[in-house]
């Protein structure tokens, strides 16, 4: 395993030191492994807390700042953070208008955030609501399963809800907005290589030189299918087809994210985006806004994912609203 680390057990603590050193606009609570804004938001506005396993950087810590999150809880690599962390974050950021938890739909994350919310309800007067992101069309949705994974849409959710919270939306309005974002958002991902979890020390799966995985998530898990390596144009189709089969985007203005999994360089992501944009045009789908780069990664995995969000005017204006975080920044 070749990584720029000191020791597998120290990855998270060491990375948090680096994040703190790199971003004075952030504050790091090392004991609880929570990344916070150095300057809290205005009193009377809802605060947003997210979090999850590490290894997806810039998600979530890189999205703490004006116009997005108020705090992010960092778990061990690919391991949901604990209720204690979430509670500490919740208590730290509440500005009297309640706290919204943004949770990616994974059993571990759901259970830990649930326990945190139960503890908060029992031990404090902070009103906590939770929105769950579940956008991965690679996973069949069903009442009998864990449901769809939360993947790329999380970035868009955090941006849009973050802007709304900044503008004074209350908890109910934020939850209603989140429902619409969830309803309009879909993602699909693929991998050229496995990632290597530091504590595991070896790639999570083997993938021959001439094959790729379609329908992967963000935790290095194998995908739904293993297929022969394709061209960028073929891959774009293999990612878009299941999204478009799942939801009709025809004629809709969309926010598109072409996201890198961590080990794929930007030149390839741009190239892929060209293919995706061409296909969307062919389908009569209008790209209203786009984002190309590494936003929600899977350690050093090579590959990419596509996220589409059918965006109404409100979402677009919230998307365009100023944001000032390490990972997304515009308008100030």
């Amino acid at each position, binding site marked *: 395993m070749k990584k720029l680390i000191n020791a597998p057990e120290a990855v998270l603590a060491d990375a948090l030191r680096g994040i703190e050193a790199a971003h004075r606009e952030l504050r790091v609570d090392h004991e609880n492994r929570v990344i916070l804004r150095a300057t809290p938001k205005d009193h009377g506005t809802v605060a947003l807390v997210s979090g999850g*396993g590490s290894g997806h950087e810039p998600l979530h810590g890189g999205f703490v700042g004006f116009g997005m999150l108020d705090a992010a809880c960092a*778990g*061990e*690599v*690919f*391991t*949901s*953070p*604990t*209720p*204690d*962390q979430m509670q500490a974050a919740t208590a730290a950021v509440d500005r009297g208008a309640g706290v919204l938890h943004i949770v990616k739909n*994974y*059993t*571990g994350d759901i*259970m*830990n955030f*649930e*326990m945190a919310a139960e503890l908060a309800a029992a031990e404090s007067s902070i009103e906590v609501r939770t929105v769950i992101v579940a956008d*991965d069309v*690679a*996973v*069949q949705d069903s009442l*009998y*399963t*864990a449901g769809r*994974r939360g993947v790329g849409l999380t970035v868009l959710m955090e941006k849009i809800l973050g802007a709304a919270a900044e503008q004074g939306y209350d908890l109910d309005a934020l939850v209603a907005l989140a429902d619409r974002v969830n309803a309009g958002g879909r993602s699909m991902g693929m991998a050229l290589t496995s990632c290597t*979890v530091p*504590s*595991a020390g*070896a790639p*999570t*799966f083997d993938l021959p030189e001439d094959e790729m995985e379609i329908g992967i*998530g963000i*935790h*290095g*898990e*194998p995908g*739904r299918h293993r297929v022969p390596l394709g061209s960028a144009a073929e891959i774009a189709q293999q990612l878009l087809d299941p999204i478009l089969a799942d939801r009709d985007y025809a004629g809709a203005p969309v926010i598109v994210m072409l996201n890198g999994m961590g080990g794929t360089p930007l030149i390839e992501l741009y190239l892929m985006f060209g293919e995706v944009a061409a296909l969307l045009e062919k389908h009569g789908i209008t790209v209203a806004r786009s984002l190309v780069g590494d936003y929600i990664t899977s350690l050093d995995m090579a590959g990419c994912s596509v996220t589409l969000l059918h965006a109404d005017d409100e979402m677009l204006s919230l998307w365009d609203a100023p944001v000032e975080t390490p990972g997304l920044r515009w308008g100030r």
Partner: protein
Amino acid sequence: MSPVTLDLARLQQWMTRFAAVAEQNKAYLTALDSAIGDADHGTNMARGSAAVLAKLEASPPSTMGELGKTAGMTLVSAVGGSAGPLYGTFFLRLGASIGDAAELDAATLAAALRAGVEGIVARGKAEAGDKTMVDAWLPALAAMDEAVASGASLVDALAAARDAAAAGRDATEPLVARKGRASYLGERSAGHIDPGAASTALLLDALAEVAAA
């Protein structure tokens, strides 16, 4: 000579034994989790059980109920992932069921284990056959109950539970997962043992072993 009941010292030995076993089986559990999950179950269990041990040493519990509570709280706050809340809830409920009893015979231990597993099910909502740790726990509880009903000793009842858990673990192999990360793989999840079922089998093996020692 094997005991007729378990006491605080034995439960403490259980935790010590389990921490050693989890550390020894870290790579094995992570390899299982690599095949159908995210390659962290071994690290999670080793980190959690070591944290429990450290906590028990730092603040030794005075009752078995307290031990359960301490172990549960520590797992909840030190592990994260799925293993943290699930095993954490297990031990919290186990501790609550034991209360301030000074000894556990086969029947009261069976009841405590059942209470713990009910916590796991309440938290994770998995059913039999979903390919989770529940598929190791449910046969273990059934075997334990049967042994108790047939008048078996504590040691024999735990041995039966251990064997049933191991069989339940092995029986997860052909299943298609409906809960947890493995469910994302759909049909591809078949042909692999569930990592949580494997750690449950290790936990019961550790218990049977300290009881028999």
